[in-house]
């Protein structure tokens, strides 16, 4: 493991970490992209810092992949400006930018061996042969696949191809590595394993990673910061904790994890204002009506009837309905404090009032 880490460090060590200008790795200013009538990206302003693991999160069609493709140079913005480390690259061709991409379908060259694939960019840069060989070997060490060097991509498994695509991009030590849903084609177990690996590699090489995904869990797990996209605009930018605990918009609250959105009378009852509230299901506790009433100053509390119970392994989800007809989802850990409430039971739902987030 140690050998792997050091190999990774030299295979793709970070580019100049001390940027005198202190400029962001990527700066996008009022970037607009339209395809005919359709506005894919509507006036985007975004700064991505050096060395950051930054995710573009959103449902399909939200514009996140278009943004990535504009940074890579595959799409030309309709208007606006894109800078890489302070240099305007808006109209530069892909081969004139120091960014590399890990494609969703990996895009490994089928007629070249794994080693030749990884070597491809180095050859174009006219890196001397011996140096090339060393870098390729180190990159394959980094992804722990030195033994597949002579195979063709068609002879690799999905996870192996994914890692080769990563090695092929990282061997060039780009300023920024763009990853377009790179784990999308992998099964759940492999995906989780690759998430850990990806995070380790990013930390070791220190390159800025821009990661496109529609999987909110993946974005929260991996990222230093996340931009949430919806219909061509960024709804919110922040750390995973910011986004999850303090969602700025209704869309962010409902797209990241599940949440209970409450407004109107019930909201006034809970906070004194009718504005939209987000209450996370795992914050709510299920209590017997006979239990001692909580201190009303710090605890929000409601009576409700359990309508549905879904057992999910480590947790149980309850669907409860208040007297006012509002449905609330509650997620309870299946531990010693589990309430054991049954369907049709009338219960009290309570949670610390600080978890009432005004959106």
């Amino acid at each position: 493991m140690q050998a792997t880490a050091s190999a990774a460090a030299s295979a793709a060590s970070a580019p100049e970490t001390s940027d005198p200008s202190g400029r962001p790795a990527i700066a996008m200013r009022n970037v607009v992209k339209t395809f005919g009538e359709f506005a894919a990206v509507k006036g985007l302003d975004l700064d991505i810092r050096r060395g950051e693991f930054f995710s573009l999160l959103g449902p399909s069609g939200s514009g996140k992949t278009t943004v990535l493709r504009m940074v890579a140079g595959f799409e030309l913005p309709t208007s606006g400006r894109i800078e890489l480390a302070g240099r305007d690259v808006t109209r530069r061709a892909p081969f004139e930018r120091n960014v590399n991409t890990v494609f969703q379908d990996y895009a490994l060259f089928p007629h070249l061996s794994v080693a030749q694939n990884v070597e491809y960019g180095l050859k174009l840069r006219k890196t001397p042969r011996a140096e090339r060989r060393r870098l390729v070997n180190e990159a394959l060490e980094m992804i722990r696949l030195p033994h597949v060097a002579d195979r063709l991509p068609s002879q690799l498994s999905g996870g192996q191809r994914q890692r080769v695509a990563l090695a092929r991009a990282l061997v060039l030590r780009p300023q920024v590595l763009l990853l377009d849903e790179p784990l999308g084609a992998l099964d759940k177990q492999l995906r989780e394993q690759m998430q850990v690996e990806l995070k380790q590699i990013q930390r070791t090489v220190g390159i800025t990673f821009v990661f496109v995904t529609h999987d909110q869990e993946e974005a929260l797990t991996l990222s230093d910061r996340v931009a949430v996209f919806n219909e061509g605009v960024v709804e919110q930018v922040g750390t995973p904790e910011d986004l999850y605990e303090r969602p700025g918009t209704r869309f962010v609250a409902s797209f990241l994890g599940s949440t209970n959105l409450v407004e109107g009378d019930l909201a006034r009852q809970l906070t004194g204002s009718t504005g939209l509230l987000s209450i996370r299901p795992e914050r709510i506790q299920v209590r017997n009506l006979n239990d001692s009433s909580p201190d009303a100053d710090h605890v929000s509390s409601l009576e409700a009837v359990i309508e549905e119970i879904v057992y999910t392994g480590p947790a149980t989800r309850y669907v409860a309905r208040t007297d006012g007809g509002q449905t609330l989802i509650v997620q309870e850990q299946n531990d010693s404090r589990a309430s054991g409430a049954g369907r049709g039971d009338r219960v009290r739902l309570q949670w610390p009032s600080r978890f009432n987030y005004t959106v």
Partner: protein
Amino acid sequence: MRFSSSAIFSLRLFAGLIMAAIYLPLILVVLNSFNASTSGTFPITDFTTRWWSAAFHNEGVREALWTSLRVAALATTIALVLGTMIAFALSRYEFFGKNTVNLLVVLPIALPGIVTGVALNNTFKTVLEPIGIGLGLFSVIVGHATFCIVMVFNNVQARLGRINRGLEEAAMDMGANVVKTFFTVTFPGFRSAFVAGGVLAFALSFDEIVVTTFTAPPGTETLPIWIFNNMARPNQAPVVNVIAALLILASMVPVYLSQRMTGDHKK
């Protein structure tokens, strides 16, 4: 699916009969090329290699073969360049009249050769000859190119449709400019279709007779035309058999090659 043993027997018999219908006449040609009798009587009583050496030394055959090779090579070259370019234009770009162009490109292969021949003959005689381009090797090459282009176009276009465009983006992403991308990624992607199309075009041109008849000036003979003209002559008939036998052998090579090329032994 499983067959009864009697069904298997009848299917095999049927397949065998069809194969025999196709290949026995070819074998007969090869055998006859060694038949000492000029009238090609059967069964063969005397074997000889006389006709083979006669064919080898026949000036007409040599000249015709050389003409055929030149025409086929040039028509194929034209077809490779133009066919590939049209395939790219039609599979990569959107433009007005795209479907019409597609139809116009493929049409020559469906058009009866005699129509192509008459049309080209008229064009050369009435329009081009007055400005100095009469019937000659050039007109034969142009005539052949019309259908050779279709061979290359069909093969390359089918392949381009299946190529992953993301590969080209990946190449550019890693620093390859447009030209480098084409030669290191795009061309290897459709190379086998390109070669297969070229081989087919060459083969088609090599045995073409109808268009050639109308576009060749008097005295210019391709090999098929020479064969056609000499088959009926009793003292040349055995030589024709030799040429046919040679052509059978020669055509096995490209068929074998194109099967290997287009087979998906490499993904």
